[in-house]
């Protein structure tokens, strides 16, 4: 019986899962589509991490160092292109720079993550592809990670910036009915970073509800409001039109019950999460169930957030739906433990699925 656990995806969930597998004496085979490890936080140029504002690259370096281990076989520029068998002995096909290889693994952890919502999608009236000064959270991350924040149209710092929340989330018409969970915190974090860089720039966040659960309330939301003077206005924006070289946002200030039409230099769309291409592809290749949004289904919720519908295949992180990094890394540990248990033939690891 092969003892190795295949971990698909080299982002925070996959890195932590592989490290955890090795920590408890297992063997991991970690495959990553890109040439570098780090996943979406790396690929999308995250600057600081929510909520404690530490550097994203420094945090990723800790995770990357965790997979430098004789019991972890890391293969980059490699994808899973075939799978057969069942728990205890899966035969998987990997396609990488050296061509196709066949591997036998005892269990699988899917950590293929999410992608940011594309604000050009139908019914969105935010002009993302029309106005250069309308950007997304990851676009802002890229600039902030380079310690600058300027209007793409002019290269000058903006006098005012608005964040619009819930773009691509909580929307039945778009098919994304769920809350993406992290965008309120990430927007507030970026707002703080902008205010640190540009003390004269006014920063606004337009929201439906601020969803700052747990410590994100006091660690991000309150400091943004109290120390960095970020202005929070309840009310969402419906459309953005160009006017005199600036952006006119039209919405409603729902607290006051009045329409708002405000000119901004820059607008940041707080785009939510959708299943990544890799998540969709891998679900098909492994034959595991997806939920109606395309994320990997976890039928054992709430007590078992990591088992898929196929025994021996587990999921960690945002492949299973919107997750913050705390959830992601926590899930990775749980999935690693379950996967090693399955490889060693511990019946308990399948309890939640057979229940």
């Amino acid at each position, binding site marked *: 019986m092969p003892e190795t656990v295949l971990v698909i995806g080299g982002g925070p969930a996959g890195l932590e899962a592989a490290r955890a597998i090795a920590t408890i004496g297992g063997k991991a085979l970690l495959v990553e589509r890109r040439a570098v490890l780090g996943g979406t936080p790396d690929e999308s140029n995250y600057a600081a991490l929510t909520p404690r504002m530490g550097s994203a690259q420094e945090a990723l370096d800790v995770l990357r160092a965790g997979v430098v281990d004789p019991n972890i076989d890391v293969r980059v520029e490699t994808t899973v292109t075939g799978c057969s068998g069942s728990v205890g002995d899966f035969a998987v096909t990997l396609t990488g720079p050296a061509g196709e290889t066949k591997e036998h693994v005892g269990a699988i952890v899917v950590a293929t993550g999410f992608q940011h919502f594309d604000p050009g999608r139908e*019914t969105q*009236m935010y002009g993302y592809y029309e106005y250069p000064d309308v950007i997304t959270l990851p676009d802002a991350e890229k600039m902030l990670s380079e310690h600058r924040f300027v209007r793409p149209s002019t290269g000058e710092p903006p006098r005012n910036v608005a964040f619009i929340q*819930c773009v691509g989330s*909580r*929307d*039945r*018409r*778009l098919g994304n009915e769920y809350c993406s969970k992290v965008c309120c915190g990430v927007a507030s974090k970026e707002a703080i970073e902008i205010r640190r860089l540009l003390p004269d720039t006014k920063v606004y966040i337009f929201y*439906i509800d601020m969803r700052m659960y747990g410590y994100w309330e006091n660690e991000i939301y309150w400091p943004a409001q109290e120390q960095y003077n970020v202005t929070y206005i309840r*009310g*969402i*924006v*419906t*459309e953005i*039109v160009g006017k005199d070289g600036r952006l006119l946002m*039209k*919405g*409603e*200030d*729902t607290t006051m*019950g009045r*329409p*708002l*039409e405000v000119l901004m230099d820059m607008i940041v769309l707080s785009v939510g999460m959708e299943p990544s291409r890799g998540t969709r592809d891998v679900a098909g290749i492994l034959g595991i169930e997806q939920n109606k949004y395309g994320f990997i289904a976890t039928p054992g919720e709430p007590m078992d957030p990591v088992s898929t519908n196929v025994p021996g295949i587990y999921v960690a992180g945002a492949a299973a739906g919107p997750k913050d990094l705390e959830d992601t890394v926590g899930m990775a540990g749980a999935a690693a433990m379950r996967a090693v248990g399955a490889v060693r033939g511990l019946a308990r690891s399948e309890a939640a699925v057979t229940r």
Partner: protein
Amino acid sequence: MGRDLPVIKVDTVTELEHAVVEGVDISGHWNRMFSDRSTTDFPTEAMDWVTGLAGGESMRDCYQCGKCVPVCPVQHVGDYGPRKLNAKILRGNNLIDDPDLWLCTTCGNCYRVCPKEVNPLKIMPAIREQAVLEGKVPDELSDAFRNLQKSGNPMGESPRKRIDWIAEAGVDVPIISQLDRAVDVLWYVSDYTSYHPRGKDAARAMARVMTALGVDFAILGPEERSDGDSARLAGESGLFELLAEQNIKAFEKYEFKRLVVMDPHAYNAFKNHYPRLGWQGEVLHYTQFLAPLVDRLTFRSSVDLDVTYHDPCYLGRNNGEYDAPRKLLQAIPGIRLAEMPHTKANGYCCGGGGGGMWLDGFVAEHVSERLSERRVREAVATVGMDGSGVLSVACPYEPSRFEDAVKSTGNDGKLAVRDIIELIDQAMQPPAT
């Protein structure tokens, strides 16, 4: 006190938004002193009642994001907002006695952007129907209902006069009952096209264009009744069904391949609502019928005009046809087509839909200006700067609404209002000498 201060109208009371008397600011709501300071109850009966109505179900789904407000045409001219309807109902107001019930034109722009798919196109008719049953209908709307019931058109004109426009068409307009044979096109002319002085211009133009194209067509003539769609949306579903029954009886009497209509409201009724009442067939708005034939239109003169186009809510947003009217306009020699900021899916309502056509007086009490007036200002800003501007339309409600608005906004001479079919007809005539 300056007379130029902003004015708020609350029901029939007019107040200044800011009032300063002898240096003391006494701004405030006129009725503040008469209402309770605290909300002492949130009665749930009104929401239960609304969502219990067939069509009212989605009212509860609102999560108060407010996306509907900036795209609501009525919001631009008053206090109204789709989100606020949910807030009112949650606080016990079932809208039956609230003027808001009659302000919605069912234009559908809020529904387009609503992340929860709350649908006033179904909710408002459902609540209005209850108001109708209770007899709580604005007088002018009652008059229109009575006329529709009595004579099959909202003006109360005799059904026999439905064909009076033919006399000046200059071409033969066959009436199907006199033909005794099948036709390719049964042309449903509509109320305003048949009776209204400006509507008749479009009817005559359409008759000439179809004749020039050699279309095998006929009309129902005196047998035609209003399509009833606006009555339905205004809450009179019984009247709608009565009119539909009469039209369906006429449709079934004759043989024709397709129905071509002038009025987007008729298009909506025949396409989306008559099937459940027993009639199904091919229905085309006249722009959809003519657009594929555009190469066969023989234009003999150039019109030399700056034209913008007003998307009718029930052709564009609510039925998805944006291209056919534009294809026709672009084919007319000499026309320079410019789009208004509110266009296509985000088109701005003329105010005539959902019964608004028969509520102008009532609505005027609750808004700062008519929707048609705002739309005309937008058209003037787009094409009306040098006097050659045309606001082109494709709905028989609009020529009269917009021409009144051109006058009332002081834009006489800057903007002409023309149905697309009138522009086509004009360009097909020999140049004026």
